[in-house]
């Protein structure tokens, strides 16, 4: 018996499970990739269609926010296990920053 080679023995069920999981993950990545391209197209379209700036800017900001979330979850592994604390801190930070910006916009610069 060789002590320094690691053979990983997986049962048939385990193997199937992992395979299915990888396939789901892959599908998720492809879907979000497609969605991102679609979002980018929308962004270009609203600009090309010459809508009012008051419409374009919020739409693009919204699309950007969706992109960020897609990126984080589907490509940067936030959906995987053990990222709860990280997500909690990120969303707390985003929340705090959002209230500050909202207040500034509504009571200082409006």
């Amino acid at each position, binding site marked *: 018996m060789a002590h320094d080679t690691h053979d990983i023995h997986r049962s048939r069920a385990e193997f199937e499970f992992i395979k299915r999981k990888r396939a789901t993950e892959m599908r998720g990545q492809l879907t979000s990739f497609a969605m991102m391209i679609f979002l980018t197209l929308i962004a270009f379209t609203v600009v090309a269609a010459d809508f009012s700036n008051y419409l374009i800017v919020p739409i693009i900001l919204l699309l950007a926010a969706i992109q960020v979330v897609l990126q984080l979850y589907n490509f940067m592994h936030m959906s995987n296990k053990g990222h709860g604390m990280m997500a909690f801190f990120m969303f707390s930070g985003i929340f705090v920053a959002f209230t500050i910006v909202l207040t500034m916009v509504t*009571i200082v610069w409006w």
Partner: protein
Amino acid sequence: MSSNSQKKGFGATIWDYMTTVDHKKIAILYLISGGFFFLVGGVEAMMIRIQLMKAGNDFLSAGTYNEVLTMHGTTMIFLAAMPILLAFMNAVSPLQIGARDVAFPFLNSLGFWLFFFGGVFLNLSWFLGGAPDAGWTNYASLALASEGHGIDFYSLGLTISGFGTLIAGINFLVTIINMRAPGMTYMRMPLFTWTTFVASALILLAFPPLTVGIFFMVFDRLFGANFFDVTMGGNTIIWEHFFWIFGHPEVYILILPAFGIFSEIFAIFSRKRLFGYTALVFATILIGFYGFMVWAHHMFTVGLGPTANAVFALATMIIAVPTGIKIFNWLLTIWGGNISFTVPMIYAVAFIPSFVAGGVTGVMQAIAPLDYQLHDSYFIVAHFHYVIVGGVVLAILAGTHLYWPKMFGTMLSEKLGKWTFWFFFIGFHLTFFIQHFLGLMGMPRRVYTFGADQGWDLFNAISSAGALLMAIGVIILLVNVVMTVVKGERVGNDPWGDGRTLEWAIPSPPPFYNFAQTPLVRGLDPYWIEKMEGNKEGMVYAEPLGDIHMPNGSFIPFVISLGMFIAAFGAMYHMDGHVWALPVLIGGLAITFGSMLVRSLKDDLGFHISKEELIADNERIQREARALEGGKKGGLK
């Protein structure tokens, strides 16, 4: 490794502390420097009270009064209260979670030295042309009009020490998330560790706005930008927003660790599990969140409009709810407990009514229309001293007594401690209670004198007398410290006899590696659980005895901070057109970035304590413990 039982020379000890990365020694550094700044701030407070002792006094000129007042507030918040709390966090929370050190020992040391040099820089203003004089809040219209370099000392000094605090906060977050011993789940963490955690999160989110605000201030004053200059299209209110977006969370950064210390004390000296542990944890987190949504209650009279005032008034009042939850939990912890009135417990019991009084005035001020009457009067001064002195400072004094044995291995005198308590406590209420009425009678805050015909003489005289009592209390504490150090009577692991958490299961002071074997935590209050099951060792272990990896000490944090300190002088005097200023600025930055480069390029892999050394050290510890036992039986008690 018997290095800590050997006597070292004075120089070697100093060098040891200048290069240490051990959280327990850094705690001592924080305690000594924070304590020093506390005394400086205290002297400034006495000068304020002497000036206001009687009508028309001329002890301080109007200009000097503004400087003393500003430096009192700034020193007490940034250089005394926060660092002393950081001292306890450093000394205790890694032990409470069963860790051998914080996650980034090097950064821990860097955080301390940045704070230290920032504080020294700020205080050098006294000798270099005058201290800042625009209040600790440094409102932009005052600050931009202030002559001399006082305000520059404020902004650069706070930038440097602010970096230090931010680094410390991040370090504790990473430590508490990643370095908990096996079994130490989040919901088994002692409350002091929890409050350290939430306060660190607040530091992480609150200090950047301050840094941004100060950055604008530096640019306005030193490089001619116009962020806050109304005549040039800037907006002076934005400073107020930045300051209070930081400032309100800051007061919670101070009070949460204080709550943590008191939670430990109530449980230990009532010999009971904390009542409502879960509620206390969630109240802490909630307070942390709400803390970011209320800053404009400091700006009700600015003219934000009725809608904004109403929103912020409501948000502010909501904070009183989790705070109230905590108060009831503490009361119910004491209820039916087997109470021993040691000095820490006396402080804790005295804290409850004092802090509640401050909370009640806080809710009064949160009523926006009423605040038009109260704002910028002595009522505000009374409010924040009730919460800060009645909450934070009492916790610091209680914590000093409680954790002194863990940090230094000796016990402060209980008798002198009680004297300190009574002088301080009576003096505190005498000084500040009456200021509520001075405020209601119309005395504005931040005035350097008042007239004899205004009817404020008697109350001001009483207030000054109270301050004298507090000063006497602090002096007795100093005597206590000196006597305890001189006597040097050693104590064992659990000197209070009723410790509940892991720090009391190891020697006082702990060996430099804290735990020879990482403990296994089997529930809330792990040491108490083991004691109750008759486990003599006080711990069960999660690993066999083996080599321990430790970080090397380093002088680099000191040098990095020194470089920033030098660069700050260059930046400041550059404005006056001195030719040497620019080279000093560049030289300072070169030192800072050069030492960072050295740190990055040179591998420092630390060292290992071998199993044999651990066994030998353990024998020494056992021997000392036996000697202590013998000594007790022979003479004392």
